[in-house]
């Protein structure tokens, strides 16, 4: 933390010497705000999230009600600005509603894995010895699967469903996060200030809470944000395969799958849900990159 703050001050001395005494987080925020690309990405993400939350109020139509007479209308049809899908449901409405499930099943696994992985990594790194062996070797086994294969194998075994897809993606993301948390914890544990805290009578719990977590959370959080984009793509991919969200729920991956038959008649409409996944995924990636350099984290 202090090292990061020192470099933060160093970079600021060149540009704004008057504010060199700013705290670490203020510095991070300042550098993040100056990154225009990251701010644009954040704005797009906020917009998409808000649109998904407010879908019931802003969507022009009912996301479930279709009509055979107006199936697969092109983009720009009056009343259906983004056309209609293969069952005649309004695409704009379904894309707005789709964001709710797509964002949920994409982000929740990373949140779960962040909590579980950090806990496992910190315990393994702090306790060390046999506990470390037991935890890290188990994690190695899961790490020895290609991530897509592991996600699909677990989802395939458990069967389709939102909960199962969240479980399988959580299992996929725990090992990499735990590895990062373990390595940062092991580095932190051997630093002088931890010895100093121990010598002055701090309990193990206090050391973990204050000193270890204080230093581990930052890098692990940045690493976790970089996984959100992969998670979004994989979660939608599971639905695309029929292993995630079930019809008729609106979800981008599933919509992409059901519209595959429409690529000959309405190619632009059929490609829309994928474009949404792409937009969210690239914004998360760019924002995560900016956050990483603003926090000066190397993982």
């Amino acid at each position: 933390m202090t090292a990061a703050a020192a470099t933060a001050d160093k970079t600021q001395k060149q540009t704004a010497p008057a504010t060199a005494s700013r705290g670490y987080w203020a510095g991070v925020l300042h550098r993040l705000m100056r990154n225009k690309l990251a701010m644009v990405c954040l704005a797009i993400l906020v917009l998409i999230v808000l649109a998904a939350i407010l879908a019931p109020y802003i969507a022009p139509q009912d996301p479930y009600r279709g009509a055979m007479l107006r199936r697969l209308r092109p983009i720009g049809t009056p009343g259906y600005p983004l056309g209609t899908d293969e069952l005649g449901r309004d695409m704009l409405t379904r894309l707005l509603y789709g964001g709710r499930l797509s964002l949920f099943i994409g982000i929740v696994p990373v949140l779960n894995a962040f909590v579980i992985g950090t806990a496992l990594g910190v315990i393994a790194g702090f306790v060390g010895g046999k506990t470390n062996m037991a935890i890290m070797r188990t994690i190695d086994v899961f790490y020895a699967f290609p991530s897509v294969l592991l996600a699909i194998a677990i989802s395939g075994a458990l069967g389709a469903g939102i909960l199962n897809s969240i479980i399988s993606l959580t299992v996929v993301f725990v090992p990499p996060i735990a590895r990062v948390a373990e390595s940062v914890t092991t580095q932190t544990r051997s630093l002088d200030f931890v010895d100093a805290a121990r010598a002055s009578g701090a309990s193990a719990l206090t050391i973990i809470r204050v000193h270890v977590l204080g230093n581990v959370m930052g890098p692990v959080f940045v690493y976790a944000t970089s996984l959100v984009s992969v998670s979004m793509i994989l979660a939608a991919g599971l639905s695309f395969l029929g292993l995630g969200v079930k019809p008729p729920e609106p979800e981008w991956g599933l919509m992409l799958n059901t519209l595959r038959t429409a690529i000959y008649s309405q190619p632009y409409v059929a490609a829309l849900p994928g474009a949404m996944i792409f937009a969210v995924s690239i914004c998360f990636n760019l924002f995560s990159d900016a956050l990483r350099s603003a926090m000066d984290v190397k993982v």
Partner: protein
Amino acid sequence: MLQYLLKRLVYAVPIALGVSLVCFLMVHIAPGDPLVSVLPADASLDLQNQMRAAYGFDKPLPLQFALWILRALSGDLGVSIATGRPVAAEVWRALGNTFMLAVLAALIGFILGGLFGFVAGYWRDTWIDRVASGLSIVGVSLPHYWMGMVLVIVFSVQLNWLPATGAGPGGSADWVWDWAHIRFLILPAVTMSVIPLGIVARSVRALVADILSQEFVDALKAKGLTDRGVLLHVVKNAAPTGLAVMGLQLGYLLGGSILIETVFAWPGTGFLLGNAIFQRDLPLLQGTILVLAMFFVTLNLLVDILQTWLDPRIKRA
């Protein structure tokens, strides 16, 4: 080196065992009876028990696992419930098709990714870097199954240049390397190449930038070495880590081909996996996952050994 090699091999055994245990258990945590897909709804209890015994589902789990592992080691992965054919033969045939696709995709992805990454790292913070880094971030952010669909829309539906799905006029059974067949390989391979492209480019960029900021590069320049000479040193230093990243990526392609194979109806392991899942064909599911996971474990091992051999600075601890 020999000692390191042995140590690394011994370490891989528990990982391989663990991986096979996960493969085995994964299928047994599945809800429902594994035989439900083949037995008629009104099957008598007698028939059910008979089938259960025939597939070995009546034995206790640890014994089933031990038997499964021993048979797998001798190349017997059981019999598919849906088709009645041996799983090993099915997986083997599909593996050839996936291999063809993944290797071609890896070649395209590694060459372009390496080039983008190198150029971006070498001309860091210039417009060249911004373009190349932009392309690589697009690569890692693209949902590749969507990109496959978009390519089909452009090149099959609108331009009518390349076939949308399948693996050749006669299927994959009589594959030959002629244009009539290669046409079918182009779109899936290009789609798949985007997965490693972005990641390889980003890794190589970071590597090259890191090497160029080291003191020995200044020393090389100071002693009057030409740019090309310096470049050679950079390549040499970036190679071990770069190759390791690429090795892992090839493994990811082999194991993660299911989405692309579904989009293009390519008859590989991913396609087989999809069938196994939706027909609840447990022996086939178990066998395919096991073979793919073991491939990945072996590849990891090879990459580690290669990296240590190329770069003796890596600790052989």
